[in-house]
């Protein structure tokens, strides 16, 4: 398929890009890596009149250390995040989520910001940023604001991004001294999207008890979510393989799950439990240095 015709602008500054978005309103869409938007346009499910390509704006890309954590520019590609030593060190689950996206070609073009702003319910990043308690910076006509990951995903393909705003960066806090994280997924074999993806990030105290844990689940429901019951069940005591398995079973319980030809709702809920157990188990092993 071929998209309907559209205008294309490539502003060189964030101010200019925001101005363009303001000018065209709902007719405009931000183009980042294009790996979500262009397929939708080719299927003619979207026909924006104007694409505002933000690839020419300096400073929107790159990974840097920030207060012991990391700051990742919105235009940073999945491949860069996957390969980054800094991301692997500070938040392994995010690197793993990046590496689990699509195929190499997609990872070389697709961007963190584009994926988060698109908010596909089966995308990999949402689980990872939820688990990492990421802070998402967005810029608008009135300046910058920071949105916590918990408040960012508001629905299927819907986010806290307001009209005319651009997601500019993502910040992830420093890992705990005894911290670990992991992302694991069951992929739809055609698209590579998550039928179920679970990210877990946890911190252990000196006695090996879980000090804090966050578990993000994607692909299962219409919006990525945190498996709070799992987090609560595991917080405060030293985990075991058995306790993790038992607690993780709750990751899909009661969830209004997606249902399609590839995976029914009950299968997705079941997978949430299985993958939560595996991701938490892996994060725990990493945290405890085993």
């Amino acid at each position, binding site marked *: *398929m*071929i998209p*309907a*015709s559209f205008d294309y602008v490539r502003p060189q500054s964030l101010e200019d890009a925001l101005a363009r978005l303001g000018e065209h309103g709902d007719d405009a869409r931000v183009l980042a890596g294009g790996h979500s938007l262009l*397929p939708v346009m080719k*299927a*003619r499910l979207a026909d924006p009149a104007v694409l505002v390509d933000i690839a020419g704006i300096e400073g929107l890309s790159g990974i840097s250390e920030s207060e012991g954590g990391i700051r990742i520019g919105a235009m940073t590609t999945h491949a860069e995040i996957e390969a980054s030593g800094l991301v692997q060190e500070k938040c392994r689950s995010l690197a793993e989520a990046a590496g689990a996206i699509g195929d190499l070609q997609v990872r070389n073009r697709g961007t963190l910001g584009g994926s988060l702003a698109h908010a596909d319910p089966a995308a990999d990043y949402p689980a990872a940023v939820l688990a990492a308690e990421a802070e998402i910076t967005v810029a608008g006509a009135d300046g910058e604001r920071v949105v916590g990951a918990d408040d960012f995903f508001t629905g299927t393909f819907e986010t806290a991004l307001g009209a005319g705003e651009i997601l500019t960066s993502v910040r992830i806090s420093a890992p705990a001294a005894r911290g670990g994280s992991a992302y694991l997924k*069951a992929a*739809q*074999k*055609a*698209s590579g999207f998550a*039928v179920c993806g679970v990210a877990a990030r946890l911190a252990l105290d000196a006695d090996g008890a879980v000090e804090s844990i966050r578990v993000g689940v994607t692909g299962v429901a219409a919006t990525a979510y945190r498996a709070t019951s799992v987090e609560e069940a595991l917080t405060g005591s030293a985990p075991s393989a058995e306790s993790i398995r038992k607690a993780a079973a709750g990751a899909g319980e009661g969830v209004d799950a997606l249902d399609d*030809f*590839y*995976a*029914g709702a009950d*299968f997705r809920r*079941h*997978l949430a439990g*299985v993958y939560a157990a595996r991701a938490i188990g892996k994060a725990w092993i990493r945290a405890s240095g085993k």
Partner: protein
Amino acid sequence: MAQAPKFIGAPIKRRDDPRLIQGLAHYVDDFNPPGTLHMACARSPYGKANIRSVDVSKAAAADGVVAVYTHEETKGIGPVPVGAVLPDAKVPVQPILADKQVLFAGEPVVAVIAETRYGALDAAALVEIDYEPLDAVVDLEAAIEPGSTKVHDDYESNEAFKWGLAGGDVEAGMKEADVIVKEKMTNVRVAPLALEPRGVLAHYLPGEDKMTLWTSTQVPHKVRTLVAGQIGMPENRMRVIAPEVGGGFGSKLNIYREEALAAFVTRELGVPIKWVESRSENFLTTIHGRGQVGEIEMGLKRDGTITAFRYNVLADCGAYYQLLTLAIFTLTGLMLPGPYKIDNIEMNATGVFTNKVATDAYRGAGRPEATYILERMMDIAAVELGMDPVEIRRKNFPDKSEFPFGTSAGLSYDSGDYHLALDRALEAADYPAMRAQQEEARNDGRYLGIGFSTYVEICGMGPSAALGGQGWESARVRVEPTGKATVFSGASPHGQGQQTSFAQIVADGLGIDANDVTVVHGDTDVVPYGVGTFGSRGTVVGGSAVVYARDKVRAKMAKFAAMEFEADANDIDFEDGKVFVRGAPEKSAGFADIAMMAYSAIALPEDTDPGLEETHFFEPSNFTFPFGTHIVLVEVDPETGDVEILRYVAVDDVGNMINPLLVHGQIHGGIAQGTGQALEEEMLYGEGGQPLNASFMHYALPKANRLPRFELLHTTTPTDVNPLGAKGVGEAGTIGSTPAVVNAVIDALSPFGITHIDMPLRPEKVWRAIAEKRA
């Protein structure tokens, strides 16, 4: 040939590869004659609907639109050709553009011609078609129920035909049996999905009254004869060129609506017309494969001897037939006994219309279905009888001394040694160690499974009488005045690599370097009338024609050399670019010198004309029957239903191999494709007849990262059906792999008491099967 072959049998790299890898190849879409207009079709979004009215005014008025065609303007074009026939089959007429009704989603209704491809697509979207959606029927079993929604209003039911095949006495065989095992099995509809979709460029030159049709096809001459017939043009005014063709798998062994449409329009407008299929259109309108649901009964003695085999099957035709729709399941019947001595066999097939695109030949075409049900039944019987899957297979193999082996389905298998291929595979896999590994894994709570497929297939299509015509292939070999050689083949390879292997064949016979041989194919103005590439026939039949044409040229050259050396033509030999008298090396000339003699023609041997160009039409005396054993080791994750293939060992006996590298390429692709059907692939439709997964985002082709390194071995049992002793390899991998993979998964799940799951074995289905048993 007097000398040992230098090139035949050598693993020479495909000469197509550099241009393909570098993007230097030319597919249909790469040709852009000046003034080319683009065609796009408005297609039915419904499985079935009445067309109340069609309003093209907005489309016609759109920017850059040159013409718009509906059924009314194109009704003079002959319907889509149906090649295969069956007695008493209902044969619906497939129009070029739908008239009062559409019968499947994707059926074209209006064609728009515009200056650009974008413009044509935009304008096609402006066509206003007032549809009255009707109930559609997509489920094969539902469609044949009495009172079902009908596909064709003017037929009494959705029954397209009945066809049967019987050998021996199945009733008697069942009575003789100690055990009868039964199962219902499905070979789901799958899409061939050549990576280059279809495409056609038609260019009519009114002054010359000559048309060139570039089309992505496996059968350029069939396209010429049939499309010229559809538009009422003498076929010798039409030139069909199959340029680089990016895969076919049978889907391009066909004549499609858009070919005749583009040919019709270019003749009307006198400018080139191009249409290139989108992937969505490819899913919707290019033929699908498989599509059988059947009940199988197999009778056996306690010792595993098969006494009878019966297959009662529904075959999904789709709404219309394409070229060979009516032939595919007959191959299932012919191969029903597989590699086993089954004296009593019966197949009862009912063809069923559904509101879907037609089924037709897809890699294996009827044989994978037969092999799948048979190999699955062998495993089910083995479980029932408490036998090892190897043992039960061996029990029923004919011995090599029994070849040529006549089957109850009426075929004569040319040659074979099934025990040897099985032995070799067991040895390569280290079967006892594999079983030990499985046992050990089970003790650790892991589920490994070992799957077998011992298959035989029918290849080298085939004797003309057995195929209902055109089972031969043509070749012309020309030695040029400078001593280079050119092969003109009637076969039409589209990725198989015969540009390399045919050069190997000619180089050896003429004692020249393979690099001095050029192979030309796929141009009806240049090559002799040919049949095409399908049914694993390219090398077996097409290559054999090359052998004979080559030998005719060689014999003629020998006469010129004999004249020069005053020797007997029978004593002339060819080696290393020299032509010489055997045993008298001083009587030697360069190959090119003798070639030039034949063209200068200053002196001619007795009864000999100038020139060095010979043609041969090769008619095979029988099909060929390659065979082999595939062994697969899988691990199933019972919590997620995921299947991982850990090892894949295949022993394929394809007779003599012209180029083992090409053989391996075919087997690699075939195994991958067959694995796709086993694990993931399936065309799914909603109730209204709309496909649910018609995109690469939804329909999973097998990817390299899901496949292990293939361990490929061979036994070599030549055939005497052709001079090469080759049996064909295009489909072996697809045929052998599907049941082997499924058998392995079922073996892995045997501790749960699972004996069968229908393909495709997607994770959810596997998980559910386990969950049901656990409940």
